């Protein structure tokens, strides 16, 4: 059977013998995805080396070069890199300047935080009630958990939106479903009415503001401006030291970033990427080519929203707390600034921008940089960092429109 088909093939290739050299030139080479995108391989290697290096130098590995709190900072930075590449895909590749992607990030954090808080409070309540002679009823336990969690906002009952909080699986599903549905509905309404450019940016800011204002309310069911806290305590792992938990989350963040990077690079390869970039450059023309532009935008908007939410779900257990301030409209603007500084339209540019600016930011605002005494005035970096960031943003926009990562191109061009 296989012999027969083999010989058939040999014959047919003989028949087209004289033409075959031309055929070879016109047939697109079926190279593997990685071979076509060497930068993906380089990125994954760098990420793996970084992850391994940090692990070996961490307290979990018995070394004390990198403190547990710094491991957390690095793990959080990886999550920020993940939301930044999502931002880069939606803005840098597809041309949708969404100023709302940090809202999706925050929703992911809230979704996972609800389970973390519920499960941990449940454990504490169970411990407290264990000593009683009469075993507590289910309703008593539930009431005790609710008053523990919602006491700060003067409530003692579970709001409807906490309906799934007892289940990790369901709450993880919410990490994807809520931002996914929100992005789908919002995007469908906005793209269908052909809202583009600055109007779309304003609309996404309005969505973010509405979400933040909702979360700030005490009766929102999400503890108002107290937010959700104690998220670093992972239920079921109370005995495991934070040094190890931090490494586990660091690894999970690195894995998510690696997978997210590969996913986006795959989505943006070939013809789909071509259409997406064409939509960015001239969407009307893409319509006349027969592509339903709105569907493409909706696909990218929703996909990136979901990835942003996953990044948030990994970020907040490392941060330990999430409050409405995190999803304030300004956060989404910072996200755009990171991508612009790193270089939009290339995935590693977003990674560089997010890592560079967010680490620098925590260095400046965390008191790492000494204040400058000018005699008549002292520059406190906690106050002045934003001014510096603003100037850097303007400088990059003016003098390095391709962002930091465009410096690589210059290096490569010099070599050749």
């Amino acid at each position, binding site marked *: 059977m296989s012999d027969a088909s083999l010989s058939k093939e040999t014959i047919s290739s003989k028949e087209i013998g004289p033409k075959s050299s031309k*055929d070879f030139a*016109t*047939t*697109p080479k*079926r190279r593997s995805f990685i071979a076509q995108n060497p930068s993906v391989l380089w990125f994954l290697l760098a990420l793996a080396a970084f992850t391994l290096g940090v692990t070996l130098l961490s307290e979990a590995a018995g070394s004390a070069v990198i403190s547990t709190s710094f491991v957390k900072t690095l793990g959080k930075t990886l999550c920020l890199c993940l939301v930044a590449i999502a931002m880069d895909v939606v803005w840098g590749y597809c041309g949708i300047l969404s100023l709302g992607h940090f809202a999706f990030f925050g929703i992911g954090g809230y979704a996972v935080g609800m389970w973390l808080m519920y499960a941990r409070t449940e454990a504490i309540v169970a411990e407290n009630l264990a000593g009683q002679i009469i075993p507590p009823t289910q309703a008593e336990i539930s009431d005790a958990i609710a008053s523990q969690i919602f006491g700060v906002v003067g409530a003692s009952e579970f709001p409807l939106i906490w309906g799934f909080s007892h289940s990790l699986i369901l709450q993880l599903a919410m990490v994807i479903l809520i931002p996914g549905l929100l992005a789908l509905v919002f995007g469908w309404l906005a793209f269908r009415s052909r809202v583009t450019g600055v109007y779309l940016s304003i609309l996404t800011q309005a969505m973010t503001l509405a979400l933040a204002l909702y979360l700030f309310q005490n009766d929102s069911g999400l503890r108002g401006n107290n937010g959700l806290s104690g998220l670093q305590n992972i239920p079921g792992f109370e005995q495991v030291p934070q040094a190890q938990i931090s490494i586990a989350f660091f690894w999970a963040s690195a894995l998510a970033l690696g997978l997210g990077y590969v996913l986006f690079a795959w*989505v943006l390869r*070939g*013809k*789909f990427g*071509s*259409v997406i*970039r*064409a939509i960015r*450059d*001239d969407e*009307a*023309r*893409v*319509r*006349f*080519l*027969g*592509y*339903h*532009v709105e*569907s*493409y935008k909706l*696909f990218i908007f929703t996909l990136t929203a979901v990835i942003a939410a996953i990044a948030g779900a990994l970020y907040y257990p490392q941060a330990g707390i999430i409050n409405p301030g995190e999803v304030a409209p300004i956060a989404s603007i910072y996200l755009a600034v990171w991508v612009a500084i790193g270089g939009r339209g290339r995935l590693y540019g977003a990674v560089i921008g997010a890592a560079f600016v967010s680490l620098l930011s925590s260095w400046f605002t965390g008191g790492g940089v000494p204040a400058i005494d000018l005699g008549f005035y002292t520059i406190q970096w906690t106050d002045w960092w934003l001014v510096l960031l603003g100037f850097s943003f303007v400088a990059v926009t003016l003098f390095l429109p391709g962002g930091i990562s465009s410096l690589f191109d210059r290096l490569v061009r010099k070599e050749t």
Partner: protein
Amino acid sequence: MSTLLELSGVSVTFDGFRAINNLSFQIGEPELRAIIGPNGAGKTTFMDIVTGKTKPDEGRVLWGDKGISLIGLSESRISREGIGRKFQKPTVFEAQSVRDNLAMALRNPRGPLDVLFYRKSAQGAARIEAVAEQIGLTDALERTAGELSHGQKQWLEIGMLLAQEPRLLLVDEPAAGMTPAEREKTTDILVEAAKTRAVVVVEHDMEFVRRLNCKVTVLNEGSVLAEGSLDHVTKNPDVIDVYLGR
């Protein structure tokens, strides 16, 4: 030759100004047709109506063997029905290679998932080579479209139209900014394309229209002023009035 596109009694008003006024127009398949007319006659607006960019206030736009109405269909849907359009100002995707530009235009399923899982095929590559040959851009396939000369961009856009394999091609002022040699090549491409499909060419340049050697429709103030061979319409006193009288 059967009727492919039929407009009847179409009118469009922009802020009280009637850009298209009770326009009726028919084209068969295959056919080559030139539309001439002074600036502001409504030639581009006519194309906007057919391709779904502008909705007419009244009138009918019927398409194909079944005579479906194009009014209210989205631009992308109309394009998938088999209507390709070349804009007055050349619009190609300058940041991408000539090959990628043509690949996007190739006649293939257009849904997001179809495109996401699309795999390059030998037929697709062969089709791209063939179109590139036709528009004289074989050696420029790997070049960035933004690097092309003005004339080459016009051809690339025509090539993208051909790659779409539409039944009707609407071409808006293709010869603008071309050298005489380039114009000649452009007429050749259009005449060749019209052998198997309907082609509508809007052009100012009479020499260009003469070389197309086809039926001419004269548009003025949003409606048809005269129709027939070029010699026939240029003898028409109304046409002379419009073109020479001012």
